[in-house]
Structure formats: structure tokens, C-alpha cells
């Protein structure tokens, strides 16, 4: 208790110096929390931009399709497969897709298209494509009884082809037997998702129509799965794979999004490294300031330390006295910084940070367009990591002056010989 009292009063002795050191710790803590919040918000946006719109959290494909996507490398989509996937713990929903590569055309204009046959009911349970409708509507639950089939296209594609809702669209794609299939469709909706692969190339149509164009039946190219905990996709993928293997579907490959989008996953890993470097630099700068403050304050008190040790204070106690000062400085500074950082980051997580001044409207990164506002992520980890880290830095900084103090010879320290 005496040590604590002394440490507090010693820190208050030179308010300017202690205040500056604690202020430095506070600013660094707040900055790191804000920075982590920004990065996590950005990554969150990137990951969700990719997974929520198109990729999903898991993808199931035939192993040949994984190797080299080809129309004929489909797999049978039956109730057993669907139920096996759905029954795996952690799985929220699954939706099948037929993927065809071909041309989409209107009158004399045509463009390469990703022609995707989907289930309009289950697709929205896995991705948010349907929420990107900017004109018209989403595909109806079932195919129209008469007339042309429905199609929803990306906004970029609609501009390229200069088409809108109500216009007709022709699709030509390779069928499973190698022949060319085609279909006549009516545009019912335009989507803008922020994912350029969808926005610039996608033509979304009913599974049945896609089956018809590709001359296939009861089969799909991929099943896309939404799960509860996206970062844990690899574990869930393994679990689904095991169940499929057990049910005799070992020709199917279940891949987590980290594997489907390796570039995205790589970016996450790089970001971790970058974070580490940023932390190291900030910690180092703060350490210099704190070390300087603690050392100066200790050096000024050598005579005092000499007296305290002369009357019988142990070296361990001497040591702890200075370490406690460092600890207190760190706790006060980091706590202030955590409060400040949490407040600003919290604000930006709720209100978002307006980035429109920094990125132009159509900027995309790895197929995901930047939103105007980035919503920060604040978590126990992003709060505690900088806070505890800087308390530790402060304690570590105290070790040197503390050790120096224990090496003092009381009689020399008192006479000012040290």
C-alpha cells in the first residue's frame, strides 16, 4: 500500500512529465483501437462483399469442377445431398446454382455473361443478391406459365447492352453435350451489389430455364452454403465434407470461402502482418517517451533512493516501487485512451466514416466496390489488445530504471556520487 501511495505521489510530483507520458500512451491506445476498428471494418466489408453477394461461406462442387470449371462437370442435386448439408451443425442455409458461360445479347449488342441458374427462394437465404435490386423486381418464386422466362441482370451489363426492365434478352451458352443452347428471356429486374462480377456480367435466371438451356436435369454446378460463423468456415467445411463422404458423395469438394477466394484470405493475413508492424512501431515510439519520463524521474531521486535503502529498504521493494510507477502510468494512460478510442470507434461503427472524399464512386478492390461509408468494427479484441499492450509497454519501460535503482550503492547515492 505504501508503494502504491508513493508511486501515485511521485507521478504527481512532476505533473507535466507524467501527464505527457500518460497522454502519449492514451493517444497511442486510442489510435490503435481506432486503427484496428477501421481495418476490421474494412476487412469485414471486403469479406462480406465477396461472401454475402456471391461466394457464400462454403461452396460444394464436383472435384473436377474445382480443378477446371466446365459445364459438364456437374453433380446430382438431390434431397439426400441437400439434407446432409443442412443437417451439419453451423450450417444456416444452402442454395444450388447452375453456372453457364456464354453470351448475353439484345438486338445487335452482346456481351460475355455469367449465366447463373438459381433458386429464387433459397438464394436470398445464402446471399444478398436480391437486396441489390435497383429497378424492377427479383425473380418470381416459380417460372412463368407462359411467355419468356425471367432474368435479372447486373447494372453494368444493363448499361453495356442498353437494356432495362421489360426488354428481351437472348442468352447463348454451351450445353452439357457440347452443343450450343439458347433461351429467350425477359428482364424483370436490375441488380447492383457492389460485386463487379455480378454487376458487370451476371444474368440470373430460374434453375429450370438454365437446365433447359444447358440440357441437363436434376444436376447443378455448385451449392453455396451460409454458416453461422464465417471465420470458422474451414471447420464447418470439414464437417460437411465428412458427412458427404460418409453418405457416399466423396466426389464432392466442400471449400471454405478462404479457399475459394484465396486473394481475400491472403489479404487478411497480410493485414495481420501489417497490424503487427504498426503495433511494433507505435509501441516503440511510446516506449521511448515513457522510458525517458521514468528514467528522468528515477535519476532525480537517486539521493532519496539512497536514503530509503540506507535505512533498510530491500532492493526488491525499490524495484517494485518504480515498476508500480510504470504500471500506474500505463494503466491511467491506456484506460483514458481506451475510453477515447472506444468512443470514437464506437461512433464510427454506428455512423460509419464517410470515405466518399477519398475514393471515387466506382472504385472496386478485388471485385468489391467501396461503400461510401465504412462501418468500423469494435470488439473485445480490438479494445484490449492496444490497451493491455500499452500497459505492458509501460511496465517494461520501468524495468530499466528499476533495475538501475536497485544497483545503487546507498552511501554513494546519498552523497550524490551516482
Amino acid at each position: 500500500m505504501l508503494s502504491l501511495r508513493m508511486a501515485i505521489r511521485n507521478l504527481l510530483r512532476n505533473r507535466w512529465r507524467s501527464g505527457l507520458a500518460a497522454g502519449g500512451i492514451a493517444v497511442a491506445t486510442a489510435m490503435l483501437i481506432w486503427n484496428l476498428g477501421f481495418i476490421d471494418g474494412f476487412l469485414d466489408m471486403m469479406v462480406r462483399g465477396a461472401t454475402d453477394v456471391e461466394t457464400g461461406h462454403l461452396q460444394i462442387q464436383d472435384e473436377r469442377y474445382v480443378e477446371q470449371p466446365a459445364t459438364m462437370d456437374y453433380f446430382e442435386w438431390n434431397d439426400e445431398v441437400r439434407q446432409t448439408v443442412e443437417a451439419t451443425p453451423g450450417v444456416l442455409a444452402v442454395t444450388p446454382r447452375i453456372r453457364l458461360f456464354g453470351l448475353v445479347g439484345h438486338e445487335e449488342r452482346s456481351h460475355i455473361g455469367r449465366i447463373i441458374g438459381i433458386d429464387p427462394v433459397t438464394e436470398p437465404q445464402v446471399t444478398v443478391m436480391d437486396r441489390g435490386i435497383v429497378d424492377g423486381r427479383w425473380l418470381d418464386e416459380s417460372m412463368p406459365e407462359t411467355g419468356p422466362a425471367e432474368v435479372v441482370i447486373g447494372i453494368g451489363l444493363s448499361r453495356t447492352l442498353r437494356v432495362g426492365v421489360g426488354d428481351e434478352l437472348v442468352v447463348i451458352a454451351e450445353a452439357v453435350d457440347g452443343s450450343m443452347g439458347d433461351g429467350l428471356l425477359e428482364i424483370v429486374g436490375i441488380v447492383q451489389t457492389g460485386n463487379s462480377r455480378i454487376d458487370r456480367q451476371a444474368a440470373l435466371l430460374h434453375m429450370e430455364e438454365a437446365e433447359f438451356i444447358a440440357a441437363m436435369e436434376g444436376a447443378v454446378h455448385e451449392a453455396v452454403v451460409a454458416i453461422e460463423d464465417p471465420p470458422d468456415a474451414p471447420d464447418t467445411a470439414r464437417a460437411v465434407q465428412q458427412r458427404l463422404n460418409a453418405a457416399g458423395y466423396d466426389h464432392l469438394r466442400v471449400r471454405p470461402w478462404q479457399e475459394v477466394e484465396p486473394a481475400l484470405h491472403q489479404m487478411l493475413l497480410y493485414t495481420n502482418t501489417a497490424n503487427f508492424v504498426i503495433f511494433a512501431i507505435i509501441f516503440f515510439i511510446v516506449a521511448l517517451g515513457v522510458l525517458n519520463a521514468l528514467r528522468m524521474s528515477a535519476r532525480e531521486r537517486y539521493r532519496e533512493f539512497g536514503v530509503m535503502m540506507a535505512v533498510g529498504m530491500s532492493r526488491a521493494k525499490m524495484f517494485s516501487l518504480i515498476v508500480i510507477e510504470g504500471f500506474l502510468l500505463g494503466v491511467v494512460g491506456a484506460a483514458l485512451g481506451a475510453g477515447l478510442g472506444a468512443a470514437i470507434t464506437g461512433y464510427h461503427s454506428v455512423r460509419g466514416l464517410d470515405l466518399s472524399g477519398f475514393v471515387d464512386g466506382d472504385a472496386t478492390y478485388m471485385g468489391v466496390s467501396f461503400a461510401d461509408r465504412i462501418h468500423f468494427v469494435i470488439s473485445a479484441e480490438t479494445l484490449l489488445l492496444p490497451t493491455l499492450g500499452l500497459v505492458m509497454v509501460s511496465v517494461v519501460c520501468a524495468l530499466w530504471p528499476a533495475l538501475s535503482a536497485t544497483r545503487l550503492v546507498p552511501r554513494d547515492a546519498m552523497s550524490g556520487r551516482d
Partner: protein
Amino acid sequence: MTDDMKIEDPAGDRALIEVRDVHRIFHDGAVEVHALRGVDLDVEAGEFSVLAGPSGSGKTTLLNVIGCLDRPTKGTVHIGGIEVSDFDRKKAAEFRLRNIGFVFQAYNLIPVLSAYENAEFVMLLEGIDREERKKTVEGLLSEVGLEGMFDRRPHELSGGQQQRVAVVRALAGHPMVVLADEPTANLDSKASEDLLDLMYGLNQEHDVTFLFSSHDPAVIERCSRVIRLDSGEVVADERKGEE
């Protein structure tokens, strides 16, 4: 001696402090400074004595050696029959805490602690409980005339008052001996006088053994025994009132 190094029953037929052929040589760069040259000295329990001598004669060095703040280059020091001259740092610190009271010339008190907290500092290090500390420290502070100033910080006290707090801190741990290195050097003559009166009173009433160093004639005058040092040697040793 108990485990915690407190001397319970000093010496028996030996002197409280026995200094035998103590030499202390400092190496100041290439220069050897022979600060003590074969000092022999006995101090009995209850004495009120002073090491007198000009500046540089070795007073501080001798007090440091006796007070386990320094080790002799050669020779031995026994306190209460225990050889202290070969203690390592840890043992020396423990021994100082339990058995020796210190009053230094200046920078005696810890600036961030109040008079009361400074006074109880040694007792606190000894692990003595709160009640006993309170009883002892309040009693002693009042006895030295500092009632009503318990909460003052050292800078709010006069030099003489500061030295009184230091005396209380030294006494509170019930040491075998109080070593005071030029305790009046920074005081005016009135304050010096008062401090000496006080210490003499404590010596008489509580039977505390005091060993000073000083070159102040007023201090030397008041002591019952004067040990004169010159160039690291005892050149005279006279007891007054033994005529």
C-alpha cells in the same frame, strides 16, 4: 540473534560496537584514497559520543562502515557481538533495518511522504502492524514537539523539524544505536542546540545509544565522549565527566 536479525540481548561483556583495525581504501580512478587507517574503537551501550575531525578526516566513512553501509577493506566490525563487516548487501540491509537508526545530514526525508509517514517508514518496512506504529510514532512525534504537524510534507517543515522527524524515524524501529552523520550541519545554531537537547533527552530517558559525526564545536561540546579523527586515524578519545 533471531532469524530476522534483530539483536535481542546485546553483547554481554563485549562493547556494543567493536571496531578493530579497520582500513578503508577508495579507488578514485588511478588514485588510492586511504580514508581509514587502522581504526580501533569500542562504543558502549547508552553512550552519547561524537566522531570529531576536520572535513575529509574519515568520519562519514567510519560511520558508514559501522552502519553496514560500507565494508572495510581490512579489519572487523562487531555490533552486539555479531560480525557485520562481512555481510553481503542483502544481509546488511536487513541488519540496518532491524538494528541501526540513521540520521543523515540532508535529504533525509522522502519528499512525497508526510511527517507521520516518514516517521513510520522504518516500522512499515519492518512489517510492524498499524496500531503499534501509530502508538509509537504519535508518541515520539509529540515528544519531539511535532504534534499538529503530522500531515505536513518535508518542504513544509523547517530544517530542524525535518531532522526531528528523521530522529523519530530512526528511533521508531527501536535500534541498538543511532548513527547521525553531521545532523546539524544544515541547521542554524538555535535549531542545532534544540536538536541536540532533544537527542540528549532521548539518550537519557530511553537509553538510546547515539554516535554522531561532526566538526561543529557546539555539538562536540554537548557530547559525553569525543573521538577525534584525523587523516583516517583516531588521534584522541576523551570521556567527559569522568574526572
